[in-house]
């Protein structure tokens, strides 16, 4: 198994871990968004979605543990890359310009990533590690998003997430070597589209709930 460790320790190995875990999160975002869209159906639909999801029992726990493992890898490897890349240029340039390859997404990856990490912790404290006795998940969500500053924090975090995904999606394909002149423009396009869907899809929910409950 030594070869696995050697492969993952290399620059490309670390990138591969980021790509694979990142793509898995893209899959999670899709499922999570589809589920959350039930909020637009009102209290009963959303509560019934949550009930159906939690009736899966141990499957949910396994899913959560897998997500946790992916998150730990993505964050730790990401921070390692951030540190190593910062160290690779001890003397910085006096004048910095973009040559034309960078995008807002690519240039802010570590920062949007850290915003997302802080947000995920907040988000779990809001809706996961919360006392659910005597009130439904809809009431918890409605209660949280009745406060304007919560809505603002969520919208900002979702925008950071969309920017992160706008680079992360195509970047993951490039890293696993899936580059083909026929499909790369499509992958890039799908990445931008996906980031817009994530941004608008998740971003509209707190605003909708705020408007609906106040």
């Amino acid at each position: 198994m030594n070869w696995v460790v050697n492969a993952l320790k290399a620059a490309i190995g670390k990138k591969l871990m980021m790509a694979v875990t990142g793509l898995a999160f893209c899959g999670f975002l899709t499922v999570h968004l589809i589920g959350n869209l039930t909020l637009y159906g009102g209290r009963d639909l959303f509560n019934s979605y949550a009930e159906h999801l939690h009736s899966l029992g141990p499957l949910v726990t396994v899913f959560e543990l897998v997500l946790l493992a992916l998150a730990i890898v993505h964050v730790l490897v990401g921070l390692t890359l951030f540190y190593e890349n910062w160290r690779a240029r001890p003397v910085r340039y006096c004048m910095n310009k973009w040559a034309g390859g960078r995008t807002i997404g690519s240039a802010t990856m570590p920062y949007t990533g850290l915003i997302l990490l802080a947000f995920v912790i907040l988000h779990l404290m809001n809706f996961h590690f919360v006392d659910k006795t005597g009130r439904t998940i809809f009431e918890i969500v409605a209660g949280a998003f009745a406060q304007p500053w919560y809505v603002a924090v969520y919208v900002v975090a979702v925008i950071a997430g969309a920017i992160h995904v706008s680079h992360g999606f195509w970047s993951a394909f490039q890293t696993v070597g899936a580059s083909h002149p026929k499909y790369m423009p499509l992958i890039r396009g799908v990445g931008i589209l996906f980031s817009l869907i994530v941004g608008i899809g998740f971003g509209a929910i707190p605003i909708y709930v705020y408007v609906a409950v106040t």
Partner: protein
Amino acid sequence: MSKTINLTLKVWRQEGPEKKGRLETYPAKEISTDMSFLEMIDVINDRLTLDGKEPIAFDHDCREGICGMCGAVVNGHAHGPEKGTTLCQLHMRHFSDGDTIVVEPWRARAFKVIKDLVVDRSAFDEIIRAGGYISANTGGAPDGNAIPIPKEVADTAMDAAACIGCGACVAACPNASAMLFVGAKVSHLGLLPQGRPEAARRVQSMVDRMDELGFGNCTNEAECEAACPKEISITNIARLNREFLKAKLFSPHS
């Protein structure tokens, strides 16, 4: 009809690898717009020498964009702001009268500054030594067309082989990564049948050496591709990733 312009140069001056450097300001008066950037520095150096000052040290050789010796970061752009050109192919006509130009050496932990704008790029030689070659036994020349190679493959290999090893990719990369250089070498050798037998060993030892030398990690910023004077595509980095993954998964030597 040749025109002359007056410029202000801010050039990185550093006496030696361990010395502290700083930006120094020099007036560059009456510079012909027909000059190349390097010829402009020649003129400034003549004037500095006449004033009894140390001329600006910079690397150069062929001055026609094929040797890979020259290179400096001009106003934040590796090889200057023009696309697909080396510093020696950058002409002063791209600047305007009164401009201030900041000139800095390539910046990377793996490329130590030797003096002023001259950096030590022997890290690239180290990477080549790790696997950037084909071990062919010399003998009688093979018959022409004995090994059929599709035109597209030959063209893709040739595009990668256009790399002159100047180091602009590392200089332009926000992470000082050498992946475009290594990707170009792995592609140009690995695409051709003569390079296949050693492909798995090559990609692994070149990537390992690259990591040891202290280059950063690729984050797919694509700045290298935009700065490369030979316009080498980042599809070569994808190919490098693919070759690496393939070698690690399937080669018995990993």
